[in-house]
């Protein structure tokens, strides 16, 4: 059997074999990578990859010249929706190119909908028959059946082996490095009832992960071990695939409104149905949604490249929320272009699923996102937040193509950080999550509350699909977000943006792994950050700094026997730093005081009598009192991070002391640091990391300590609770 349709010479100037424009277009796009024109790590995609003129609509869906990606997995698909049976009958052609320097002797495809085939799939066993609290409805199973799989006109379906949601096909003739093959297939996808991203309810159809999608073929750095990086559809993690171009024609009843990846380039109507053709370039997936009840709202967001068309397909009666969707998207576009690079596509579609298809909400697809219905007041900023989050995914992982199954924190986590930043841009009041009455909650606070519940469980570097549900969510999203905020607070906002842009530029339309990310951020920031990554990513170390002790003592001389006249004091060798200075001062002043008006010899310096004390108090006044103050700061957690300790004195003055990274790393097992002060004012409070730069800090209340109890806030809070109860008691008699 001949499986390879056409094989390119190693360094071809042009394609000869593929006859169709589609083949030529996709293959040419891919060839740049084979040629080494687009090395992994290149900061931009060179123009040498420009699509051939034979494909006139090559950059139709883009606002910048393309191609932007290798386009090594490109599809032409047709799909007919049977709205009664909730099935999609489809056929398609895939042109896939081997980008590696070793041959591929088998092909692997994702058949994602098989995850919903029965209760013993990987997905259901891991997640239960639910996702994010949405339960799988009864009789809601779904599946994908592949009827035909041809390579070079030869039917190979009988040789394919389907395991759960992955299909493997051994090839008689391997696909050589740089070679491309054309694969034709036909299939039927029975949609599940919606609970996990795809499916249907009534007329609403979320047609996502609906066609056989080829996995990602790759070799390790030595090129010795090659194979498809493909996973079962796991319970909590998502997807991973190559970039390509898509031309998809969907056939739906005429009354249906369709939202899809890319832009619509054609429409044909006949016999109560319509065929809509969509084009998308440099994308890694194609999803579409159909519902006769969608209500369309169109607007645009302007950036330096021009306009991005925003199309919201909302539910009936919810038009008042359209602007909130637009705001969320707008904030994300501007934030994304600040932190990553320009959004290159012409449009984005926002889908609002019905309530009973809530499980399809909160998802990202290329140039298309799904939001949630929110029967909440405006102050609960969930619509803006979800839209900003899902739109942020247009960069990670849609363009910066990380593996969502193994390294979910590279997309969900970084994007969670991004969401907070976009929401802060939209709501600078610090209440980016909730502002209802006087209650205020920011995204950072929400992440912190979530992450502190899963500390000490698994390191972030754990392959994401191995994390169980609750741990997955809080670790991948919230913990990563706090980690990145901690890093940003260490680097400063400008260096952080610089580092993120460096990473984004380097890996856009490539496939970074965590090591790539960490080294790119270090490079971009201009500093070796391995001290941070080695703690926050690869270990379960917890961050927690606290002020353990704050103490004031009235300063007294060292009473006892002193030799006069005073000599330079001799200090024990083990005493270092500030303590040595303070001790020396104490010795000197005490010796001098003991010798005032005394002849040479040994004299006793005694504490003042009560009479002398009273006289001193009158003479010197209260403000003359000297205080020896002490602050003990403790690293209660294991994670080391540079912190500042700010101490305030009763006279209003304050002082800042740093506990640097170098100091802490010099003696990592010494978890306490004592700081002494000798002042004319007593210490009022001490706070470690008062600005909470270490966002990962597990406990914040213990960051500060007062020298004396302050009952005012306690009384204020207590009386509020008391008044609530009293009001309830008063109203009992109603």
């Amino acid at each position, binding site marked *: 059997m001949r499986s390879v349709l056409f094989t390119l010479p190693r360094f071809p100037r042009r394609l000869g074999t593929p006859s169709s424009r589609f083949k030529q277009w996709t293959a040419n796009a891919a060839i740049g990578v084979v040629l080494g024109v687009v090395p992994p790590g290149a900061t931009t995609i060179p123009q040498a990859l420009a699509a051939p003129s034979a494909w006139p609509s090559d950059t139709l869906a883009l606002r910048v010249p393309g191609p932007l990606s290798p386009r090594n997995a490109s599809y032409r698909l047709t799909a007919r929706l049977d709205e009664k049976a909730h099935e999609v009958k489809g056929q398609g052609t895939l042109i896939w190119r081997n980008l590696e320097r070793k041959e591929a002797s088998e092909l692997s495809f994702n058949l994602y909908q098989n995850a919903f085939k029965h209760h013993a799939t990987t997905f259901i066993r891991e997640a239960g028959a639910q996702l994010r609290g949405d339960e799988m409805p009864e009789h809601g199973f779904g599946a994908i059946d592949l009827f035909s799989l041809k390579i070079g006109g030869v039917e190979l379906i009988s040789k394919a082996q389907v395991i759960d949601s992955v299909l493997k096909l051994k090839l008689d003739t391997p696909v050589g490095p740089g070679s491309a093959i054309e694969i034709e297939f036909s299939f039927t996808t029975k949609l599940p009832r919606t609970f996990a991203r795809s499916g249907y309810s009534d007329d609403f159809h979320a047609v996502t992960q609906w066609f056989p999608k080829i996995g990602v073929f790759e070799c390790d750095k030595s090129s010795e071990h090659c194979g498809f990086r493909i996973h079962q559809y796991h319970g909590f993690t998502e997807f991973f695939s190559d970039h390509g171009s898509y031309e998809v024609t969907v056939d739906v009843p005429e009354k249906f409104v369709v939202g899809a990846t890319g832009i619509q380039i054609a429409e044909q109507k006949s016999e109560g149905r319509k065929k809509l053709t969509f084009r998308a370039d440099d994308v890694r997936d194609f999803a579409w949604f159909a519902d006769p009840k969608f209500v369309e709202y169109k607007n645009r967001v302007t950036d330096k490249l021009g306009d991005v068309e925003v199309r919201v397909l909302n539910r009936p009666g*919810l038009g*008042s929320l359209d602007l909130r969707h637009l705001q969320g998207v707008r904030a994300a576009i501007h934030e994304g272009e600040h932190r990553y690079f320009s959004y290159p596509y012409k449009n984005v579609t926002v889908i609002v699923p019905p309530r009973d298809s809530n499980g399809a909400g909160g998802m990202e697809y290329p140039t298309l996102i799904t939001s949630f219905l929110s*029967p909440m007041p405006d102050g609960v900023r969930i619509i803006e937040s979800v839209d900003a989050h899902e739109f942020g995914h247009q960069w990670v992982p849609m363009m910066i193509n990380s593996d969502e199954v193994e390294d979910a924190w590279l997309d969900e986590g970084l994007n969670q950080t991004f969401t907070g930043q976009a929401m802060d841009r939209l709501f600078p009041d610090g209440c980016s999550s909730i502002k209802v009455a006087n209650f205020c909650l920011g995204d950072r606070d929400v992440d912190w509350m979530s992450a502190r519940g899963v500390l000490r469980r698994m390191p972030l570097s754990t392959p994401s699909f191995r994390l169980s549900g609750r741990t997955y969510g809080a670790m991948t999203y919230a913990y990563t977000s706090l980690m990145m905020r901690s890093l940003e607070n260490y680097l400063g906002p400008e260096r952080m943006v610089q580092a993120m842009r460096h990473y984004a530029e380097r890996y856009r339309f490539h496939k970074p792994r965590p090591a790539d990310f960490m080294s790119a951020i270090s490079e971009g920031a201009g500093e070796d950050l391995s001290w941070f990554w080695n703690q926050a990513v690869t270990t379960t170390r917890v961050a927690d700094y606290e002020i353990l002790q704050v103490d004031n003592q009235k300063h007294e001389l060292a009473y006892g026997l002193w030799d006069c006249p005073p000599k330079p004091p001799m200090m024990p060798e083990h005493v270092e730093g500030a303590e040595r200075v303070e001790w020396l001062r104490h010795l000197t002043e005490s010796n001098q005081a003991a010798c005032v008006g005394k002849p040479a010899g040994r004299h006793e310096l005694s504490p003042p009598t009560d009479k002398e004390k009273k006289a001193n108090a009158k003479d010197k006044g209260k403000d003359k009192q000297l205080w020896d103050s002490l602050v003990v700061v403790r690293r209660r957690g294991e994670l080391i991070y540079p912190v500042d300790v700010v101490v305030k004195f009763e006279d209003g003055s304050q002082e800042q002391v740093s506990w640097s990274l170098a100091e802490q790393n010099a003696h990592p097992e010494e978890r306490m640091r004592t700081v002494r002060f000798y002042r004319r004012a007593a210490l009022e409070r001490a706070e470690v990391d*008062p600005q909470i730069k270490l966002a990962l800090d597990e406990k914040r*209340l213990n960051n500060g300590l007062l020298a004396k109890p302050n009952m005012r806030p*306690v009384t204020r809070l207590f009386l509020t609770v008391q*008044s609530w109860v009293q009001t309830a008691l008063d*109203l009992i008699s*109603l």
Partner: protein
Amino acid sequence: MQQLIHNQASVPNVASQGGFAALQKGLSKVIESPLLILGLGMLSLFTALVSTLPVRAMLREVLALRPLAERIAKGEYDVGLVEIMNDNPAAMAAVTSAITVGVLCFFLLHALISGGILSRLSPSSSERYVPAGQFLVRCAESASPMLKLELLFGLAVRTPLLLLGGAAAGFAIGWSKAGELSWGSLMGRLAPVVMVFVLAWSLASIWLTLARMKRLDDDTRSAWQSLRAGLHVLGQRPVLIGALLLAVLGLIGHGGLLVLGRTLTVKLDAKMLVLWAFVIRQALSLLRTALSMLIIAATSELADDR
């Protein structure tokens, strides 16, 4: 308890003059009873203080030495409250239990003294009326039947009313379709239901007062008979109109006091003017007590048998 007065089916005099006349007379009765207002106000203050003392102990332990407490108290750092609750689950459970016990005790106590309050607020011409010196005696005499009545009323009226209210709210928002609505339309649909429910709740309270009166008037009546007799009086048109007026007054009055209280104290709390906030809250509590007493007194005037 001796039988105080015989049941008569005649239409009440004040009722025939309308709810405003009853309100006027009730108001003068309330004004004449400052000690009763103060006493009831102190009772709720004392109960609330005692039942929330564990909150103070917990907050003192957790916050007294923490600089962040100031920001939490000013409302600048709400997430701090979450940290306190998360990190002190045992203390939170203790606090919740103490408050629950406090509220239950107050509810029982209030039921026990309701006979005394009603007698004290009845028209002085009524045989139910007792002078201040007899207040506690009347409370003791009527405690048991009043408690039975309260419990029966809770079971037979309050609970079905709650269920009905829930069902009406569900119907208004279309049950499972609630999630399809925006906040505005959700509130728009719920608002009339809530208004009607609260009005019905207030009207039910007036019914309870009438039932208490009937029970006090005739100690041979069972709780059930008292409820029926109260309903019978409430069903008389002039009484019903007056009762509706009182229910609306109660609704507006208590709602207004809640809004006013919140408006006034939020700013004071943010500025940490603790004492002022406390004084205002107590003043509002006394006003709430006075309003409740006014409604009881007016109900008594409205429906009293002569």
